[in-house]
Each structure stands twice: as C-alpha cells, then as structure tokens.
C-alpha cells in the first residue's frame, strides 16, 4: 500500500499523481490522507467537498484501488507516520516545497520531519514546472 500525504495545492496534487504512478507500477493500493490540525478557521490545505469529489473521480478513472481519509484535529506528520507504521504500507509520497534558509529556521517543516523520521522509503516530489 502506498500512502500519499495530500494537500489542496500543487504540491499535494503532484504527490497524488506520483502516488498513482507508483501504485500502478507496484500493483498495489493507495491510501490518500488529507489531514488538518483543525486549529484555524480556515485551512487552505484542507480539501473541501468539491475538490474531494474531483479527486475521487480522478482516482476512479485511473483504476487504482484507494482509500481517502480526512482526519481532523491531528498533527499531519504524526498522522502520516502512524499510517506508515502499518505492515502493508511500503512507500510514502509527499510534495515538498523550497524553503529559504531563514524559512527553514523559523518555520517548522512537516516534510523534513517525515523524511528524517519515517523508517520506510519516502518519495519527495515537486510539482512540474510548466
């Protein structure tokens, strides 16, 4: 099973595409997780109904068996690591963004935490620059 850390932006979508490709390649299932800490009134990374609808449609069209969950009130990195703890999880796919040195210092990085702490392989992708 491939775990995809999804967010409602180009990085999440890039991760989804690569996750689909990997799942087809390995002939396995997909688990798409779009979580939010629920701490703010608005979370741009949290996919709303219409987007979820589109994602599910896309996944159905690709013919990949999938599960899509949207846990609320959790820490994203912890949630993805927990998912990777499952026996059947073999690969984690996440989208990463460029951070300036100052940005890396001041702001936390979910991707950095995942890359360093996940015991299984992690695929870090960037959106295609068109």
């Amino acid at each position: 099973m491939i775990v995809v850390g999804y967010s409602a932006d180009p990085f999440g979508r890039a991760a989804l595409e690569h996750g689909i490709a990997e799942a087809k390649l390995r002939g396995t299932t997909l688990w798409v997780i779009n979580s939010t800490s629920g701490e703010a009134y608005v979370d741009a990374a949290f996919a709303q109904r219409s987007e979820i609808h589109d994602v599910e449609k896309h996944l159905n069209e690709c013919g990949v068996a999938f599960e899509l969950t949207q846990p609320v009130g959790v820490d994203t990195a912890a949630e993805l690591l927990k998912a990777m703890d499952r026996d059947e999880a073999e690969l984690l796919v996440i989208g990463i963004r460029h951070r300036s040195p100052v940005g890396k210092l001041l702001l936390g990085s979910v991707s950095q935490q995942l890359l360093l702490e996940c015991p299984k392989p992690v695929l870090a992708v960037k959106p295609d620059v068109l």
Partner: protein
Amino acid sequence: MENLDWLLQGFEQAATPMNLLYAVIGVLLGTAVGVLPGIGPAMTVALLLPVTYNVSPSAAFIMFAGIFYGGMYGGSTTSILLNTPGESSSVITAIEGNKMAKAGRAAQALATAAIGSFVAGAIGTALLAAFAPPISRFAVTLGAPSYLAVMLFALVAVTAVLGASKLRGAISLFLGLAIGVVGIDFLTGQPRATFGMPQLSDGIDIVVIAVAIFAVGEALWVAAHLRRRPAEVIPVGRPWMGREDFKRSWKPWLRGTAYGFPFGALPAGGADLPTFLSYITEKRLSKHKDEFGKGAIEGVAGPEAANNASAAGTLVPMLSLGLPTNATAAVILTAFVSYGIQPGPTLFEKEPLLIWTLIASLFIGNLMLLLLNLPLAPLWARLLRTPRPYLYAGILFFATLGALAVNVQPFDLVLLLVFGLLGLIMRRFGLPILPLIIGVILGPRIERQLRQSLQLGGGEWSSLFTEPVAIVVYVLMAVLLLMPLVLRLMHRSEETLLVVEDDQDQREKAAQA
C-alpha cells in the same frame, strides 16, 4: 441650531490627529474581531478597558465606537465568504451572501454589504444626533419614580426577549443582581456579601466582571470545543458592484435602515428581529423572487443595512438614558463609569463636548470603514488562517493583564477565574450573557433610585406611581411579562408570532407544483 454647533465642535475635536489615530485603530481592530468568529466587539472593548486609565475619554470612546461599528462590517465579510457566519447578527446575510459568493458574485455581495452598512451607519448616526438630545432633555425632567420605572423596564425587556427561555434569562439577571449587591450599602454603610474581605468593600470591579464573563468565559468555552473541520473560504478579489446591482440595492438599503434603527433604539429590540424582517420584506417586494435562496442581492443589502442601523440605534438609549441594550454598549458604559462620568440623561448637559465628539467620530469611523473594507476584504479573509491556540492564549493573556492592571493585586485574578468559570457555565447551559451584565450594571443603580425615590416620597410606596410616565412604563412592563401567558392561553407559541412568510410562499409553490 445649538446642536449643530455642538456637532461641528465635535468634528473639530474628532479630527485632531490623535483622535483620528484612535479612530483608525478602533475600526481596524473592530473589523478584525468582527471577521474572526468567536471574538466579538464586546470582548475586545472589555479587554481594552485598561487603556481608560491613562488615555483621554474622548480618545478612548472614539476607539470603542470604532470597534463597535467595525465589528458589524467584519461580521458581514465572514458571513459572505465562509459558509458559517461571523457575528450572530450576520446569520441572515449569510443566507444570500454565501450563495452569491459560491456563484462567483462575492465581490458584489461584499460591496453591497459594505455600502449598505455605510449608508445605514450614516443615516443612523444622523438620527442618533437628532433624537438623542431631545430624549435626554425629556428624561432629565423625569422624576426619580419615572426613571426607576424605565430602568426596571430595561431589565425586564432584556430578560423577556421574544423567543428565548424566560427562565434562563431570569436566572442570568438575578445572578447579575446578586453580583451587584456585593459591596458597602450606600445608605447605612454596612458591608454586604463581602465575605469579610476588605478588597470587596468597593464591590466587584466591573472591569473584572466584564473581562471575566466576555473574554475568559469565551476562551474557556472555545477551549472545550477547540478543533473542528475548517470551513471553506471563497476567494475573492476587490469588492465592487455594477449599475444593475446598485439599482437593486439602494431601496433595500433604505428600507433596512428604517427597520434597524427603531428596533435598535428600543430596549427589547436587538439586531436579530430587524434583519429578519428586512429579509422577509425584500423577498416579498423583490422583482427577482426566484433568486432568493440562490443569491439575491437584495437579501444582502437590506439585512446588512438593518444590522448597522440597529447598532446606531442602540446608542440612543445608551447615550440619552444610560441604558445599555446590547453587550458592547454595556461594556462601553462601564468605561464611562471608569472615568467617573455618570451615564444617564444628564450626560448631554454635563459632558456635551465629549458626547458630540463621539458622535462626530462615528461619522468619521463609518466613512473610514467603507474606505478600508472595500479594498482590504481579501486581506481580512487571510486573518482567518490564524491558529486558535495563538488567538485564545492571547485573549487569556490580555484578560489577565487587564484584570491585574485594575489594582495590581492577585485577588482580582482570583475573581477573574471565578467569574470566568461562571461565564463558561453560562455558555454551557444556555444562560444568556446580556441579562447578567445588565443586572450587574443596573442593579445597584436601581436600588439606589428606589431608596432615594422613597426617601423623597417620604417613605410612601405609593409615591412610586405618582408620575404618568412611571405608570405608562409599568403598564408596558406588565404587557411584556404577561405576553407569554396570554399566548399560551390562546394556544399559540411566540414562534408563530414570527411566522415566516416563507410558509405561505412554500404553500403557494406547493400548490403551483
């Protein structure tokens, strides 16, 4: 006219750089807290009460008034862009406004809300300037018995609101009255309910109560329900409207104002009824009836105007009679007391410059809000991304700071905690907040009026009923109190009084289908 003179002097004062700065701060803060769900103008003014210790009264009130009006503007931004409303009085705006936003007409919805709020605010403030002085002059002629009757009426009105649980309103009210008892009895000098503690002999500082009930209580309540699904924000550019939208909006603006102002000025009114009535009226009168429920611009224009006009209206009893009819007005009144200014009918006589400066700055603030909100709306929407832990930790921090600043003693913090827990309990069990605050503010004043009236009347209870105004008010009070009973006898509930004409529309539609 003498009042016009005063108003011009007020503008002069309000336009000084210092006061303008405070006005800007006020409207910015007000819009920000209006946008953020969960934080309101009442809480913000309560948290800012410490500034009254060293800032001039006019500057402080200009800021508070800016926060008051700003809260209305901010609330409509959230109700249009989020699928949940900001201020509770913006619920109606959310119905049509959010639908408009989803249909890609967010810019127009925001524009009509902002301009409508401005129009209503301007007209409402003008009406305030016109009506408050004569009312106040009339009120001064009232004797102690009549003034007592009016205050009692305010208490009853705030408790016996149509459609709400009277039992719980009464519970809140009497808890507030109980808190007001604490202190030294003004006639006999004996300590009452002070637990033998000298710190309580001056009574419980109203600033501590206001901050505890509004800020700490709210923070604790939200802390118990902290994480939830984020709402969907509809992205929007700069608000603007086309000519067609303008043509459809201007009459609802005026009608909304006509609904909002009188309801705001009456003690039993509030902002919910007029916005509701405005919505129904616009629906009935509209040539685009089928758009209602899918994003009709009249459904935003009218209620928003009603909302703002109602806010202006609540300032009438507050400034002319010293009676607060909503939470923010109640907190602003405590600021008056903090400055040693006695609120009541004599306010216009004793502090004319202050009051007229305040009224002038309402005009200025209103204009500032229009100019700020039109271009800045997308920015306000970004404010919604602030994580709650920062927000509510900040609220608790400033609440503690404010309470500590009163007397610099930890005892006030104990009171803050105790009453903060009370605020939490009230929110958990559905006890309305406003009657409590009104009880705390008006309770001691009513007792004082009562005993002074009796003193003047030679100790005779009948002296309370000697003035015609007093009698009229008592009759009105009786009507208000007995109405639920009468309705029950007629086998109707109060909700049927507010029967939505939608019902009729629905039946017609069903008949046509």
